[in-house]
């Protein structure tokens, strides 16, 4: 039997929270190993194909819970491989939210001003740019025109997309084979590898134990590359520092499973889960009204019929992101493409006589699929989600070879959350049904409960030990040397796409992790440039990290 391996820093997960921290620690001189439970795909391996076993099912996880289902990345690069690359910063009021605890939920050290230099670092690294209306596909243009017709504003959202390479194929949820989408596979991860970090795909971490020298032993299974239900072997790695970045649907589960070995977890581990207040509405447009009311037509003369064309969400209305409005009344509405595979079952038939999500009338709705427009609500929920006892392995009981599982998350929306959803649904109706443009119905929660692509807050930062699992440096309370840097650390719903905020928080957490590693004898220092060598972002944050910096 071989000796247990050891490393300075063990990173669990390779999405934003894992890739960013792995890069900085490796660049600073630490020995870094990244364990990722999904496969490692790139370029031409990203299939434009809905067949089971193509990249569409290999890189995704869809976990059905009680009242909430979670769609997340499951591959090297994590959520960045499957995301739609919309990268807005969270509005100022978000950091002042009270949520379910009745007082400010974010740590005192963090507000929008404090986070902006860290956002700048991410914007430089990916990079993130503002779109023009020329970049916006027909669906985004239609949503923008409808917003304008309703007397509202609408913005092309900032994105991490190389517009010269983008073909508007709308397959980006299966990974971008044209390398137009700036996933972590193109910046932080190759830079981490260049500095010696080792990334091991198909390694699913199950639990942590303590080592005699005050570090941690990480226990993993190696997963079969085709059938993720099959574990082919197991192993362990010892580390001085553990960074948990398995995502908000998995990080708390690993910690729950570790509790018998590590001792009691903070109360907030596996609680306060937020679905980012998300909700989808599908509108079925009248093509003639698009032409007659909005004056739109494509170069070929067709008014729209372009649901399939484009690149995910491109236009949002931020009129309701008004800090003077009461909490649970603030939300953004974003045009979104939701592809087939799971993208049609939850769409409901407006004014249905029979069932709303299946049957005769649903079939007729699908005949008009080209004229669909999906609008994505991101609102303020109440952090209602709670994880039950962890499954035997992973974060769900896997049902299919890939993608589909049954998890232990339960979510019962409160009156506050329902209020936000109702207000946003009404706003969508007001915009999209005006002057007979379309008919619109929210996606049903009856099939698999509510649904989020942006799971957050299941292991959150905060100043109050009773309601937060992490201190404001992202260290797990009462478990020194374990840091959590993924979406689970975000305290609550953000009312916008969260990738930019998750990434900025990971950047901000790095100096504290470097200091903790130094205290454990690791020869590491802080101060790497952006992955491509740019230094403007580093100049912006260095004044903030004095005290934890050795230069």
């Amino acid at each position, binding site marked *: 039997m071989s000796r247990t391996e050891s490393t300075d820093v063990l990173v669990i997960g390779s999405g934003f929270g894992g890739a960013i921290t792995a890069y900085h620690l490796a660049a600073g001189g630490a020995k870094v190993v990244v364990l990722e439970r999904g496969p490692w795909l790139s370029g031409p391996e990203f299939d*434009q*194909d*809905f*067949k*089971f076993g*193509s990249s569409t*099912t290999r890189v995704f996880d869809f976990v*059905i819970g009680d009242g909430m289902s979670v769609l997340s990345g499951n591959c090297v690069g994590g959520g960045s491989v499957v995301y739609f690359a919309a990268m*807005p*910063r*969270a*509005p*100022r009021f978000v950091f002042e939210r009270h949520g379910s605890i009745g007082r400010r939920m974010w740590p005192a050290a963090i507000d929008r001003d404090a986070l902006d230099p860290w956002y700048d670092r991410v914007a430089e690294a990916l990079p993130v740019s503002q*779109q023009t*209306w*020329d970049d*916006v*596909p*027909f669906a985004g243009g239609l949503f*923008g*025109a409808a*917003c*304008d017709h309703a007397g*509202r*504003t*609408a*913005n092309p*959202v*900032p994105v991490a997309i190389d517009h010269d390479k983008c*073909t*508007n*194929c*709308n397959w980006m949820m299966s990974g971008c084979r044209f390398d137009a989408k700036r996933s972590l596979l193109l910046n932080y991860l190759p830079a981490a590898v260049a500095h010696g970090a080792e990334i091991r795909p198909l390694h699913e971490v199950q639990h942590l134990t303590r080592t005699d020298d005050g570090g941690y032993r990480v226990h993993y299974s190696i997963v079969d590359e085709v059938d993720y239900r099959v574990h082919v072997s197991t192993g362990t790695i010892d580390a001085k520092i553990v960074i948990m970045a398995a995502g908000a649907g998995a990080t708390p589960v690993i910690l729950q499973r570790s509790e018998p070995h590590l001792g009691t977890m903070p109360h907030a581990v596996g609680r306060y889960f937020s679905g980012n207040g998300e909700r989808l509405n599908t509108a079925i447009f009248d093509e003639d009204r698009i032409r007659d009311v909005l004056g739109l037509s*494509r170069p070929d003369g067709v008014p729209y*019929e372009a649901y*399939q*064309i*484009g690149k995910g969400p491109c236009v949002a*209305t*931020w009129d309701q*992101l008004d800090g003077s409005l009461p909490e649970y009344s603030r939300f953004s509405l974003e045009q979104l493409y939701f592809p*087939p*595979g*799971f993208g*049609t*079952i939850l769409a409901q038939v407006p004014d249905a006589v029979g*069932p709303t999500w*299946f*049957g*005769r009338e*649903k*079939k007729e709705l*699908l005949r008009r*699929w080209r004229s669909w427009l999906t609008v994505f609500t991101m609102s303020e929920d109440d952090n209602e989600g709670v994880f039950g006892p962890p499954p035997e392995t992973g974060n769900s009981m896997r*049902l*299919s*070879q890939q993608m589909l599982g049954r998890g232990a998350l339960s979510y019962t929306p409160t009156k506050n959350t329902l209020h936000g959803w109702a207000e946003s649904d009404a706003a969508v109706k007001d915009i999209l049904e005006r002057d007979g443009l379309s008919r619109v119905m929210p996606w049903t929660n*009856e*099939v698999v409960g509510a649904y989020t692509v942006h799971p957050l807050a299941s292991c959150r930062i905060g100043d109050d030990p009773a309601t937060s699992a992490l201190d404001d440096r992202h260290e797990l309370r009462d478990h020194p040397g374990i840091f959590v840097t993924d979406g689970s650390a975000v305290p609550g719903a953000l009312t916008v796409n969260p990738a*930019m905020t998750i990434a900025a928080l990971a950047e901000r957490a790095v100096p504290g992790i470097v200091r903790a590693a130094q205290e454990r004898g690791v020869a590491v220092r802080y101060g790497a440039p952006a992955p491509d060598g740019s230094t403007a972002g580093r100049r912006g944050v260095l004044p903030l990290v004095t005290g934890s910096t050795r230069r």
Partner: protein
Amino acid sequence: MTLEAFADTILPGEKRFPDDRAVAGVSTGGGAVASGAIDVLRTEEGGMAPALDALADGLNEHAERYAGERSLPLDDAVPPFVSLDYDHRVALVRELVAADHPEREAWVSLAMFNTIAFDAASHLHTVDALAAGHPGLTTMGYFGPDSDGLWRFPSYSYGRVLARPHPDTTPSGSPA
């Protein structure tokens, strides 16, 4: 046949032949059955295959009970669920997928796979499915790829300003 009738209830189609009993024939064009619902359910990847016999038996037991409660005559020549007409199939499926039904997860899963057969043809490469005129993707008007099998849309934008931006937008394009 029973599972075909369930798939046809979720996304109905036209009869494949005049005496088709599984497909109720309440919609023109192919539905979930013609889209390959049974093939999708039988794939090794999907994970449903081991449960199919039990699901078919369960569905027929529910159909017998449903018919008994309503004194509906059943035709012994076909399984009980197939014997129900379309509207009764719908009514029974609504009962089975209702929020308070103890077996709802099984029936919702079955419906999910039927829908995936129609909207994604997950048992086939998408390029091949489109080339073969897959009923679901064709009904939806799913655009095909270029000659190299990859999708690109060179014409994609109205190319003009269509709304005013929010007044509190930062120079980098985010909410202030």
